[in-house]
């Protein structure tokens, strides 16, 4: 149970609530009994299917009933249907789960059922030789991306919706260019810099674009530094931005970039002298200098780290022990 406030109720109010609930319980238990006994007797009829709809509308977490529903479709209903009818049924199935997701956006079983639906879309409406054999699949996948974006509009951090998004993108019959997905993360980030889910997605998309050479690595990386710098200046306390910056720096192999970014962050620190994330990042990047480019840096860098760690201990006492451990290893 998440985010449900505790309210103090009088004994009378509680008794009244129990009484009201009694009929609901009786009704639900009868429904429960009915659906499980139909399931036990392998009843794969349309009535059984409709019954699962009623149960799942009340309780979308009843995984056994989702399983039963899929078995009814697979063994009872689909075998008697034409591909067009199966397609229509799956469309209904998806609208039912869309409604369920609006009310329960974090229920694994609903997202899971959607994937199952997509995986069972039949070939059609065309054939191998005539029309488009992937026509239905294409329109479903496009629509799924749209539904998913609506879910992310409602909650930009919903990790179910992000996982589903990656699943859709990976399985689209006509692949969406990764540059389009990069643009999507830009929009998400620009509407809220704190959206680490979007930054995370960006790390994955860029890794792929850079790896395949579809995006010029050096030029694109500079643009990323530009983007993250703006975000750093907008809210220096937002950890999403600093984590992304750390990803861009990586293992610190490029000393030139490392030196330049240290200067940028130092300038920001001069403006915001109590910025924990400036100091934390400076320590990390200076340590990378020491670890990766020891022959090229002077010993003063280690002392810089010590000074910063000392300040961090005072500024961020919760993580004091971590700063101490780092200092010991300098």
């Amino acid at each position: 149970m998440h985010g449900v406030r505790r309210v103090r109720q009088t004994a009378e109010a509680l008794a009244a609530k129990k009484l009201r609930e009694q009929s609901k319980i009786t009704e639900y238990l009868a429904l429960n009994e009915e659906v499980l006994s139909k399931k036990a007797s392998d009843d794969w009829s349309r009535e059984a299917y409709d019954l699962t709809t009623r149960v799942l509308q009340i309780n979308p977490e009843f995984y056994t009933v989702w399983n039963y529903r899929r078995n009814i479709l697979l063994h009872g209903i689909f075998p008697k249907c034409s591909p067009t009818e199966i397609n229509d049924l799956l469309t209904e199935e998806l609208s039912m789960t869309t409604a369920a997701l609006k009310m329960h956006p974090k229920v694994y079983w609903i997202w899971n059922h959607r994937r199952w639906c997509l995986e069972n879309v039949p070939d059609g409406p065309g054939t191998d030789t005539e029309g488009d054999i992937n026509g239905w699949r294409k329109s479903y996948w496009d629509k799924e991306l749209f539904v998913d974006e609506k879910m992310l509009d409602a909650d930009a951090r919903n990790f179910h919706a992000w996982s589903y998004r990656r699943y859709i993108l990976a399985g689209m019959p006509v692949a969406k260019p990764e540059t389009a997905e990069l643009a999507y993360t830009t929009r998400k980030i620009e509407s809220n810099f704190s959206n680490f889910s979007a930054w995370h997605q960006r790390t994955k998309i860029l890794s792929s674009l850079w790896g395949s050479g579809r995006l010029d690595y050096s030029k694109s990386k500079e643009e990323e530094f530009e983007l993250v710098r703006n975000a750093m200046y907008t809210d220096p306390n937002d950890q999403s931005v600093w984590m992304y910056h750390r990803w861009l720096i990586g293992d610190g192999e490029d000393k030139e970039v490392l030196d330049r970014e240290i200067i940028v962050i130092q300038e920001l620190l001069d403006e915001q002298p109590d910025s924990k994330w400036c100091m934390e990042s400076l320590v990390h990047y200076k340590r990378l200098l020491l670890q990766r480019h020891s022959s090229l840096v002077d010993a003063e860098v280690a002392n810089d780290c010590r000074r910063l760690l000392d300040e961090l201990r005072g500024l961020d006492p919760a993580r004091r022990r971590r700063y101490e451990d780092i200092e010991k290893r300098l």
Partner: protein
Amino acid sequence: MSSELLTALHVAYIQSLGKSTDDLVYHLTAHLRLNAIYWGLTALCIMDHPEALERDEVIQFVGSCWDEKAGGYGAHPAHDAHLFPTLSAIQILVTYDALERVDIPVVVKFILSLQQPSGVFAGDSFGEIDTRFTYIAVNALSLLGCLDQLDKDKTVRYIKQCKNFDGGFGSCIGAESHAGQVFVCVAALAILDRLDEVDSETLGWWLAERQLPNGGLNGRPEKLEDVCYSFWVLSALSILDKVAWVDTGKLTSFILSAQDPEKGGIADRPGDMPDVFHTHFGIAGLSILGYPGLVDLDPVYCMPAKIIEKKGLKKGWKALERQS
């Protein structure tokens, strides 16, 4: 708000849960029944009241959840077998030293049948995949003494691919790091003796940054605190021997502030309705934090440490010293 653990109230709260049949929520959560019994029983053991539930009754109930067709446990009689309740059933029976009730070869077959070619596990035959299921499989096989039947390299290979630049792990390849997934991946690697796959310093940093100014822990950057993350983050930190990287005093106070001081139980955050899930993870967190009077919890298996030790399964984790 209380500054002490209200043990007697929590024990009574957990006991009352099995009797709340006049509550609609009780029936709407039947699909979590075995998990809930595991949560309740483990919390009771950690509070040193293992006798608070009727042992024979619980063992009998676990048996009634057996799904003959699939060869695993459902969450409730007549519910389908799934890895979640299968692990809960095994954990409950191990806690009660009643593993002889399990048809081990059949359960092992069920678990192993769910490993996918990629190495990840599905939760059931319909194939939802998640690193949580990998942990469940590894944990259950280990408790059953059958870990040698698992293709470990294949299992580790998948977990490895879920690692992100921030040191954390996601639910599947490509997914964002999440404290719950960090717990399952790190604990699975611990059981498989493959902690060399963890970038301990980077992950320790990410985990330490889960703590918010009010002492509570969140599960991802820029999200709200929640008591259940107390366990997931602390478990991973204790496996990395870095519990002290967060303010343990403030975290203890945060967990205690989420107690219901009238009816017992712990909620996700102060002022909210308690439930057995958060009660369990709150108390589990307090045990790792060395809260006085509690029994040691093994953070890898999330069960009483003594039981795991007795089975010879203890890994190298480090909790805070028990305060007196």
